[in-house]
């Protein structure tokens, strides 16, 4: 219990140092573009593969489960689109990103901590928390929604490809299904969730990296902790946000 309160307190104090104005605008922008590259572009591949296959599997399973002739096959398109937008893309892909991006952030910052690079920044008079963590948070907040939108497209596309290939559902039915009762609000809902999750991933990983003490072994532990705790928080906030936004 004491440890929990201590961790939360330390996290809040760190965030107060993170969310300040960068000392040098130009350096911040350069950093931000680097992070787009490292945290965004480099995640594109895994996001694309997982989303496409996920959409395909959802579509196939739905198609097989419809055995009543009373239910139109266009329900496959409907179900695939709804589940990809509501849950699979924002939540599952965010969990994947917590693993990929979170461990990267924690190990990068943790290594800088144990090799005294953070001390070196502090000695020069640089606010190391802001300098290191802020660009990563901003990058995640901006790039994760883009990744999720791409993931949604690819998920729906994956379902369509699977239906075409297997001949289970015709293209017309599938596309018609996607548009049944389509409410743009659910995309908005997906993006709100994504932004929350992005914040969790970047700040939790930044925190565990920043407070690392020791050596290479502890850096590994910090990155594991970052992944575990950000995943738990994502699942928890998924429940809370779903309650708030959909009821």
């Amino acid at each position, binding site marked *: 219990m004491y440890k929990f309160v201590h961790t939360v307190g330390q996290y809040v104090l760190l965030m107060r140092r993170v969310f300040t104005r960068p000392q*040098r605008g130009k*350096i911040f922008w350069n950093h931000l573009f680097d992070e787009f590259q490292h945290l965004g572009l480099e995640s594109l591949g895994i996001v694309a593969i997982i989303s496409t296959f996920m959409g395909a599997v959802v579509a196939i399973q739905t198609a097989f489960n419809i055995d009543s002739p009373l239910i139109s096959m266009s329900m496959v398109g409907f179900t695939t689109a709804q589940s990809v937008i509501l849950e699979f893309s924002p939540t599952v892909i965010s969990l994947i990103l917590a693993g990929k991006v979170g461990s990267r952030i924690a190990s990068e910052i943790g290594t800088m901590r144990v*090799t*005294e*690079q953070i*001390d*070196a920044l502090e*000695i*020069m*008079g640089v606010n190391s928390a802001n300098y290191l963590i802020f660009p990563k948070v901003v990058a995640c907040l901006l790039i994760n929604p883009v990744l999720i939108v791409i993931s949604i497209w690819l998920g729906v596309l994956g379902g369509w490809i699977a239906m075409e290939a297997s001949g289970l559902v015709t293209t017309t039915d599938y596309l018609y299904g996607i548009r049944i009762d389509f409410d743009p609000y659910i995309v908005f809902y997906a993006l709100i969730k994504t932004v929350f999750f992005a914040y969790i991933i970047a700040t939790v990983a930044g925190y565990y990296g920043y407070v690392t003490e020791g050596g290479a072994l502890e850096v590994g532990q910090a990155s594991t902790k970052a992944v575990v705790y950000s995943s738990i928080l994502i699942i928890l906030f998924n429940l809370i946000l779903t309650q708030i936004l959909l009821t």
Partner: protein
Amino acid sequence: MIEAVGICKQFGDNMVLKDINCVFEKGKTNLIIGQSGSGKTVLMKCLVGLFEVDSGKVLYDNRNFSSMNTNQRKKIRQEIGMLFQMGALFDMMNVQENVMFPLNMFTDKTEEEKLDRVNFVLKRVNLENSNALMPSELSGGMRKRVAIARAISMNPQYLFCDEPNSGLDPQTAGVIDILIQEITREYDITTIVNTHDMNSVLSIGDQVNFIYKGQLWWQGTKDEILETTNTELNDFVFGTELTSRLKTRRS
């Protein structure tokens, strides 16, 4: 000049520093020596404010560093250069970017002026034409020299070096020591060096402070250290095979 006044620091139950009073003079290489674990690094980190002292204060030319807030400290920090035990180069930047980093962060110089300055300090540490190398491509001695170049790029008034020559062969270690001493005299700055290497002590110890079990146990010059009768210091100085043989031969 830097003064430590009654510095105490403990971690949990471990009293690491006990009432350290010490003056580090300008234009001299002031050494802090002592066994591994005696508190040298902790003392240095207290002096630069990476650790907060439990009691006591640190004065930089009569400016009370310990009572300053973050913004006031930032000013003083720009007058400080520090060389860390492991170099602490930014490993995602090449040599030039490392040395230029403080200039980018804190000055409004043009690119050309900054590059001039970088080349000047790199030349000072005998590392011309290595601007494009990454830290991973450097040898231990080169890393230390790049770190020195970065530490002096802003023309510091105070230079801190934590074990500048640990992990280096005796000759390279000597080169680093001499470099630190030359820079200190040339720019008339206050330099503090942590070391447990007797070679360094005897070659550059203008003022030597011996820390024993968290206390300032002995102070003197490199010449006085060989004549001392202080038991603990003698154990430290003549603690190795080589030095003890030399001592027997002398007497």
